[in-house]
């Protein structure tokens, strides 16, 4: 698994046992210090934003509206329908597409990936196909998706699906493939059949890595959303973003971006909590 996917949670955790023989700039701040610095840093960012965009500031308000205006745009989105739907409906439309594509990709990609990790013939056959598929950006599929699937939800789901299937498959494959062979052998000598080894040992042991793959897939799916909603959508966060940008409603555009970002972060955190829930043994031991 790519380390790029390491968590926000990890980022925020203070390291244990600060090494006192190091100078302070090399020493891990304690949890309270961390919080303090983080707040100060965020405060400074907002302060800078406000300062730069005030009347006669360095940045024209058309390019970057001041915080106050973005907040107003949020209130406006929140309180009244925009482009024919309320904010909840827009978010719901986006979630539906992403969930559809991601789950569909998982339903196919997870078993396929596991099979590819476990049976080398399956891997030999399917891996090259994914090697070819991987470097083609999901966005490049949009025109073909319309040609093939028309203008319903299915085309959008397809684009999200394409974005999600690659990590589902490849990470699941890697997860199963890299299981310590010793565990397989131990299970075999205890009398487990091939299928039992796969289901009871390999899949369970690989669970944290499998969930990590699912998380990457969800991230990819979410990333593709905005683009997918260029495509015949009549509601959705991406649809808001595109329309707001066409009408230069920068405030609304920023709010849409922020909502997309926050939801993306929530998904990531949610998937990590899921790991802890389904694989309690992995949370403390294996990773740290």
């Amino acid at each position: 698994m790519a380390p790029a996917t390491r968590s926000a949670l990890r980022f925020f955790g203070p390291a244990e046992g600060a090494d006192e023989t190091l100078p302070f700039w090399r020493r891990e701040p304690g949890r309270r210090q961390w919080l303090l610095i983080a707040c100060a840093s965020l405060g400074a960012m907002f302060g800078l934003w406000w300062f730069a965009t005030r009347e006669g500031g360095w940045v024209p308000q058309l390019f970057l509206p001041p915080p106050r205006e973005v907040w107003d745009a949020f209130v406006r989105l929140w309180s009244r329908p925009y482009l024919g739907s309320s904010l909840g409906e827009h978010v719901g439309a986006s979630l539906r597409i992403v969930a559809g594509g991601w789950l569909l990709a998982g339903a196919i990609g997870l078993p396929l990936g596991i099979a590819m990790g476990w049976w080398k013939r399956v891997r030999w056959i399917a891996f090259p196909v994914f090697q070819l598929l991987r470097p083609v950006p999901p966005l490049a599929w949009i025109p073909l998706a319309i040609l093939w699937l028309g203008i319903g939800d299915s085309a959008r789901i397809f684009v999200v699906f394409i974005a999600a299937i690659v990590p589902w498959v490849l990470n699941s494959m890697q997860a199963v493939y890299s299981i310590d062979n010793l565990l397989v052998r131990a299970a075999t000598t205890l009398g487990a059949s091939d299928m039992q080894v796969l289901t009871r040992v390999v899949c369970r042991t690989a669970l944290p890595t499998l969930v990590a793959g699912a998380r990457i897939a969800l991230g990819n799916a979410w990333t593709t959303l905005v683009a997918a909603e260029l495509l015949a959508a009549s509601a959705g966060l991406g649809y808001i973003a595109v329309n707001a940008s066409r009408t230069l409603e920068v405030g609304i555009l920023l709010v849409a971006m922020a909502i997309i970002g926050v939801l993306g972060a929530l998904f990531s955190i949610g998937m990590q909590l899921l790991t802890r829930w389904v694989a309690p043994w992995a949370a403390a031991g294996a990773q740290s």
Partner: protein
Amino acid sequence: MEIRGVSKTFHARGGQTAALERCDLAVAKGEFVSVVGPSGCGKSTLMMIAAGLEAPTSGDVLVDGRPAGPAGPKRTVVFQRFALFPSETVAQNIGFGLRVAGTPRAECEQRIGELLRLMGLERFRDAFPHELSGGMQQRVAIARAMAVRPEILLMDEPFGALDAQTRTVLQEEVSRLQRELHYTVLFITHSVEEAVYLSDRVVVMSRGPGRILREIAIPRDAAWRGLDIEQAGEHAGFMQVKREIWELLRGEIVRH
């Protein structure tokens, strides 16, 4: 169990490695046989073949006079690196072999309870492996291997990864188990002392492509049986056997 004329050659990327050359070894019921030999001589390979986890290039493995077939619960293995299932609790690890065999729940529970008691692990029943110390993990691995009542227990340097003191404690425990339960054990180790202390017979292997160099029987009724390992180590008889094996080995150890 009998290993007859077993050779093994690995085809690695670069070329071939002969790991074993015509090895013969028999382990009688209830016997504790140790194998010592220099690093890389093929001890682990021999064990894997004995367990049915690796196929010999030539030769046979027989159990009760018949070909042993693929790996299964008749010959369970305790590995150096414990190889516990990280996603299962101690009790689940121990019961694994029983569950996959479809043993009724009640019987499983009872056997697990028995083994937990035997190994002094009752308090850690629901702990995950990563929450245990190395010594305890290896105890779980031994219990897991014993749970399915194998005909022969194969142990590949089970104490190699433990620190000296934990090792001593476990050595004494295995010795006690053996005296009480009369398991058939094939035991691989680097430590001559350990081999002498635990075994009925010590097999010394040569380096290079491993061959059986010598077998040294150790009487069941030796004076130091039943003592703890430190005390046993000071017995003259013990020391003599140890020295004998050591001399054999020393010739085989390549410096570097």
